[in-house]
């Protein structure tokens, strides 16, 4: 019997999408291990929203802190809570905040670490993790070594689990004891909002992503319209973000977001390997590119060779027309 814990980040009293996904994942793994899903909650309003995580799959929630401080500052109570709960695994989102906490946990307690994983299973009370490594060149399966501590830290990519819907019930909530850590010295000295509203790409079922071929900030307007027609969000390659055509929050790839939508439309994106690692888990990939030899053709399902400026507006109009029909 082993419990499975997960990091649950809160913003303004509400769990983030990653918290809901990981709750579903932890519940699934805990059921396989004969234990319970345990939330480790932090962020503004975590104490208020903790009980509600029961509907998402958590049997218990330990509130680490509810302050509006950098996530890494909860490292002290996190380490103590994991030590006390001794779960078979701690699932962490593969986000900067999630990785900060996972890494400090690994370094503080000397734990085996995995991920970002594409799948996790329980085998004999321990995790078996499948990962895509070497930029997608290999799929590996890993286990904790026989001599390793019983708790594994597992980074989980966005979209690996689907949040439970229509759940009910309240999780048992407890407050983690305060514990000091060098990470408590990190503070936010300034915050700037550059863009009023940026869609959360990790949550989008459809993404229309633009690259160098889009050519300008104005060029992205056609992509915005296509995304709106499809009910999706706009993303970008590093080239487009570096050029300043879109904010960096929309960048997809090795140094940006890793996404897993049902449909990924790559527009004017050549398809460098660094971009590929950010979107290779998409279910369907459609590429529109002028260059018939663009590498994106190697991992697209549908490859349209042509001028994006001519095709994208027509595709938007065609989709709108069919919706109206």
């Amino acid at each position: 019997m082993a419990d499975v814990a997960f990091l649950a980040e809160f913003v303004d009293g509400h769990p983030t999408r990653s918290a809901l996904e990981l709750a579903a994942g932890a519940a699934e793994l805990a059921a396989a291990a004969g234990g319970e899903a345990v939330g480790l909650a932090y962020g503004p309003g975590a104490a208020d929203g903790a009980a509600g995580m029961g509907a998402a799959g958590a049997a218990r929630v330990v509130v680490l802190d509810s302050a509006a401080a950098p996530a890494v500052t909860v490292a002290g109570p996190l380490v103590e809570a994991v030590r006390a709960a001794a779960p078979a695994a701690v699932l962490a989102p593969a986000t900067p905040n999630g990785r900060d906490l996972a890494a400090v946990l690994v370094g503080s307690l000397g734990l085996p670490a995995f991920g970002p994983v594409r799948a996790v299973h329980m085998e004999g009370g321990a995790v078996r993790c499948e990962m895509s490594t070497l930029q997608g060149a290999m799929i590996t399966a890993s286990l904790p070594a026989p001599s390793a501590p019983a708790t594994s830290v597992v980074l989980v990519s966005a979209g690996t689990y689907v949040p439970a819907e229509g759940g009910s019930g309240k999780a048992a909530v407890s407050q983690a004891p305060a514990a000091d850590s060098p990470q408590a010295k990190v503070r936010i000295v300034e915050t700037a909002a550059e863009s009023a509203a940026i869609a959360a790409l990790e949550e989008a079922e459809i993404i229309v992503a633009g690259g160098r071929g889009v050519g300008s900030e104005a060029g992205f307007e056609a992509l915005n319209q296509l995304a709106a027609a499809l009910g999706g969000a706009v993303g970008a390659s590093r080239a487009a973000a570096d050029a300043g055509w879109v904010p960096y929050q929309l960048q997809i790839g090795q140094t940006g977001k890793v996404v897993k939508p049902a449909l990924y439309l790559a527009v004017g994106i050549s398809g460098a390997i660094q971009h590929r690692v950010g979107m290779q888990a998409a279910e369907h990939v459609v590429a529109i590119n002028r260059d018939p030899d663009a590498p994106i053709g190697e991992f697209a399902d549908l490859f349209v060779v042509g001028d994006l400026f001519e095709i994208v507006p027509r595709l938007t109009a065609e989709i709108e027309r069919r919706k109206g029909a």
Partner: protein
Amino acid sequence: MKIVVCVKQVPATTAEKRYTSELRLDRAATEAVINPLDEYAIEQALRLKEGSVVDEVVYLSMGPDSASEALRRSLAMGGDGGVLVTDPALAGADEWVTARVLAAALDRLEPDVTLMGMASDDARGSLVPGAVAAIRGVPLLAYGAELRLTDGAAQIRRLNPTGFDILEAPLPVVASVTDQVGEPRYASLKGIMAARRMELTTWSLADLGFDPADLAPLTQVVAADPPPAKPPAQVISGVGPDEAASRVADWLAERKLIA
């Protein structure tokens, strides 16, 4: 002020990668380069040195003997010294082992800032900076789009969901930076020649006070296979834009991606 930049030698992005019979990456058989994302950390450190904020930039790498090449390539960009931790017992090191060994080397080098790239090309956990920070008991400032140093403190600019935050912590710190810090410089011929003559420091596990038996990896790879081949793309080419748009819409509709 002293910065130690950790650099990792990785297989070139375009190189063929193979696993050995022990399910470890066959590093000997693979063309190796400095992890491309570490070059941004090097660039950030050298800019701080040029701005007279930092006096000394030293590179630290852990890997086989051949990783000394990564140190020389780093030094060719600039910097003052290189340390290689190498030991046959380190083959197959995982994040925990890597972090412990780097932390032990850093205990000797005593930098104000330990700087790393945001991830490595050959694994994507990005856990080593934070694990090193925890082992050394210093604050972590990860994913900086820029690193600034002030009197006694370090700051990073870090993206948040709608803008950015400035995070600050007192020195010493472990920091990592992203590819937004600015394009890494090319090594000059003069730099390459100077780096070739520079004396590198080499430490074994025994030099760092480790018994290799205490450094067993906590994880084990039990299978490694190439991903399943993807069927070739269906191609729409040589048709007008109206026809192309209509066919894409048909394709999407067939898969119920549009109504």
